[in-house]
């Protein structure tokens, strides 16, 4: 498989009132052509910020460092106009909230067509036609008249379909979807994931799916990267990670997810809270919450080390993790 996006030591630092902290602390990973990579973590794990940084979308008080190699260029060192040639054309992004992510004062057809006129110099009429075709592809009924709608005239699910269609207008090599189904109800979520799967397969687009929902991951992703406190703690094929998690955090996440297969009378939550990024412990950031904690964990931070078939984890504990109940 060919890597199309290679990230090395990505850091995103925010300056806040009276100090600064790193929301992403040295992220390394690669995205393969045509695959679906799920990026999993809870709020504040840096999963969104890492990808915002690649797209040049960090907030004004933030800055990114490291390298993000894409098509022989480092995205982080591009000028704004060079970056604009990549954004929307080769890498597209979809956001969590479809209700507010479309411009309320522009017709959806115009918002979609704009991508083509901007990147490919398509004339307005042809671009509009392409937008209508795309609306049809993403499953919007009566696409011809719907292109003339304003966002408020569409439901949340329809708007997210528009967002997906808009992102795919230029057939990008990479599509980054940041919690694309979180704001939608469950039945619509399933339709959306199906749509992602089909469209990305058709266009050969690599999909990065940022989510905190392991159910979504299981349904669609090939590989997965688990993030905690701004770092990747475990990566590998989805099946491997689900059946044999090797990082206690992932283990905890899986145990705290309800499953229709087993009858659990209660879920096992992960004790404690994610660490405050401005006051990280000296060792492993997960150590205070970890059931497998060893003395070394409180002094030395583990690094992400490869093991097995295409897997990697950042944990001092070596070997399979038995369930929390028997370990503690």
């Amino acid at each position, binding site marked *: 498989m060919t890597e199309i996006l290679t990230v090395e030591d990505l850091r995103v630092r925010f300056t806040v009132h009276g100090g600064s902290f790193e929301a992403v602390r040295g992220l390394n990973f690669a995205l393969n052509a045509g695959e679906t990579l799920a990026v999993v973590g809870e709020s504040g794990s840096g999963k969104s910020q890492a990808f915002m940084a690649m797209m040049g979308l960090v907030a004004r008080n933030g800055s990114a460092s490291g390298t993000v190699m894409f098509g022989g260029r480092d995205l982080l060192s591009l000028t704004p106009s060079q*970056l604009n040639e*990549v954004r929307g054309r080769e890498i597209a992004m979809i956001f969590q909230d479809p209700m*507010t992510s*479309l411009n309320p*004062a522009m017709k959806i057809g115009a918002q979609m067509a704009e991508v083509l006129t*901007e990147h490919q110099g398509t004339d307005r009429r042809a671009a509009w036609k392409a937008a209508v075709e795309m609306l049809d592809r993403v499953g919007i009924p009566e696409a011809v008249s719907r292109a003339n709608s304003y966002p408020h005239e569409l439901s949340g699910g329809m708007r997210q379909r528009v967002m997906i269609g*808009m992102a795919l207008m230029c057939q990008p090599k990479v599509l980054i979807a940041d919690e694309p189904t979180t704001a939608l109800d469950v039945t619509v979520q399933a339709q959306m994931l199906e749509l992602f799967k089909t469209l990305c397969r058709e266009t050969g687009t690599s999909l990065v799916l940022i989510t905190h929902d392991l159910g979504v991951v299981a349904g669609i992703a090939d590989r997965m990267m688990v993030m905690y406190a701004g770092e990747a703690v475990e990566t590998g094929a989805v099946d491997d990670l689900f059946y044999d998690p090797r990082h206690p955090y992932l283990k905890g996440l899986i145990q705290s997810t309800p499953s229709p297969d087993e009858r659990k009378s209660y879920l096992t939550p992960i004790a404690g809270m994610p660490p405050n990024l401005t006051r990280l412990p000296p060792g492993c950031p997960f150590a205070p919450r970890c059931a497998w904690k060893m003395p070394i964990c409180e002094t030395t931070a583990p690094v992400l080390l490869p093991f097995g078939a295409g897997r990697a984890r950042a944990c001092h504990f070596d070997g399979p993790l038995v369930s929390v109940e028997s370990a503690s």
Partner: protein
Amino acid sequence: MIRFILRRLAIAIPTLLALIVVSFILMKVAPGNPFTGEKTLPKEVMANIMARYGLDKPEWQQLLDYISNIVLHFDFGPSFKYKDRSVTEIIAQGFPVTFTYGMWTFVVSTVLGVFVGVLAAVRQNSWVDYLSLGITIGAQVVPVYVVAPLLVLIFTLWLGWLPGGGWNGGHWSNVILPVVALSFSLVASVARIMRSSMLEVLGSNYIRTARAKGIPGYKIILRHALRPALLPVVTYLAPMLVYVITGSVIIDMYFSTGGIGSAFVNSALNRDYSTAMGITILYGTLTIAGNLLVDLIYAWIDPKIRL
């Protein structure tokens, strides 16, 4: 759309009638009449004058006559103060002046205010932002009656570039100073509203979407951000439009422009019933028209508003 406009015009008629009745009552409630001066007139003379202007009739009759004259003949009656001048003439003389410098003020304030506001928002926390913030706060707190004489001092007395007063048929050199003086604080208000609403829009999710689509910055401002950001400004434009075209007494006084503003104040002071009433109706009509215009602009900017 058409139905909306027709409905609004239909509502305007009872609104104007109510305005006429209320202002008529207010004028009558105030003690005295247009002809009570320092010199007491003989009873017979006073009665003659009152009869001449129809003021001897019962009040309800006067009101009905007044309204029917307007409706049937578009006649606002004679001025009670200036013999041989009708209210229509007074308005016809003063209003074009006011309208001219008012509309210029409106255009200048809106365009300049929006421009400065957008610039300050786009360059937030830079020297441009701080400079415009400083100037706009300054401009907002300095009243017209301070700005006007300062302008005359600088541009007329010191530099000698522009006439310090008069109208001269609306020659551009006579129009500039009144417009600048009146625009001063309005530009500042518009700029500040524009800046804050632009900042809000620029921080919104759909602008992030536009950036993620690779749209260059200036196009994001012009195509994606400007229209939604204009909404709060438009809200402010309605009262501003009315304010500028109904004229400013201070401007008329300082620059001797002879606009309707001074005529209105004089008519109220002189108890010139018909002139005051006539100008009140004019102001009322303009207010209604201004609000209607702003509602139409609103609908054009925000597709969620359906008329």
